[in-house]
């Protein structure tokens, strides 16, 4: 029933590296280095939490793949895939938990 939608999502994963090509920092998401350049200083509050959380795939990159443009693109696409899977399964678990029920006989993929 949802085959076309799955295809659309797969297509988005495959095309995701396009997002990697636009590497400019989004407004308000500056690193401490960028802030130091822009504002001339790094506010204490920002400095104090800098790097406190080390995400597994920080910035949608897969460290194992190494550095360089291709690794960045591949890591981005891989992150898209990994993230999609985690989000999907988390949603299923969460909603099932909420409703305390199972999905219909069609199974997990709808």
């Amino acid at each position, binding site marked *: 029933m949802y085959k*076309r939608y799955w295809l659309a999502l797969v297509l988005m994963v495959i095309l995701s590296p396009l*997002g990697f090509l636009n590497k400019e920092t989004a407004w308000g998401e500056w690193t401490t280095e960028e802030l130091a350049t822009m504002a001339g200083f790094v506010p204490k509050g920002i400095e104090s939490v800098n790097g406190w959380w080390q995400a597994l795939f920080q910035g949608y990159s897969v460290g194992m793949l190494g550095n360089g443009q291709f690794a960045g693109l591949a890591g981005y696409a891989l992150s*898209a895939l990994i993230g999609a899977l985690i989000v999907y399964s988390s949603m299923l678990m969460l909603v099932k938990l909420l409703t305390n029920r199972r999905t219909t006989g069609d199974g997990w993929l709808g």
Partner: protein
Amino acid sequence: MHIPDGYLSPSTCAILAGVMLPVWYKASATVKKSVDIARIPFMAMGAVFAFLVMMFNIPIPYGTTAHATGAVLLSITLGPWAAVIAMSVALFIQALIFGDGGILAFSANAFNIAFLAPFAGYYTYRFFCKGAELGSRRQLWAGGVAGYLGINVAALSAAIQFGIQPILFQMADGTPIYCPYGLGVTVPAMMFVHLTVAGVVEGIVTALALKFITSQSPDLTFESTINCKEV
């Protein structure tokens, strides 16, 4: 944009968490009560869509980027409360696993993107699409306008959250402790990005996705949230 940690004071984050707790509670209760089990995979796919669409960075003049959120699309197709859940999950995974958005700032990002955007978008949609035929131009336009408005409401909220920091939280010598830019900077900057580019992209994404859904899944178009005709 996803607000990183450090830009908002702990008290700001706590207040927004305090607002989000009843929102999440209400969203959970609503979903629990009214979700159609057969639609659960669709809900989950919606969250995946939102997660993925937020990875497509769009270049903005003056050297920055922005992205659509899918928040309004989800609120139209799933209903606003289910969209709160789906968007919150997407945002949470983004923050936790990919460092996109802060952990402490999660409540702020959720407030903007998982609460304000879906609701602003949903009611805008319902207002403009009233009586429109399924798959009609007007329905799609309503979705587009709703998307445009929804993301801009979220953007304004984020701009305010940023912009009040320097006035409220200073060191003894007046130096900002958190976001160093006041409303005079944050509001024009955020609104420029979202009114000119991000909002348009969000609107187009919402309208196109609605077109796809209404043509692919006639059965879904009778959902009370998408359907604009009085039943």
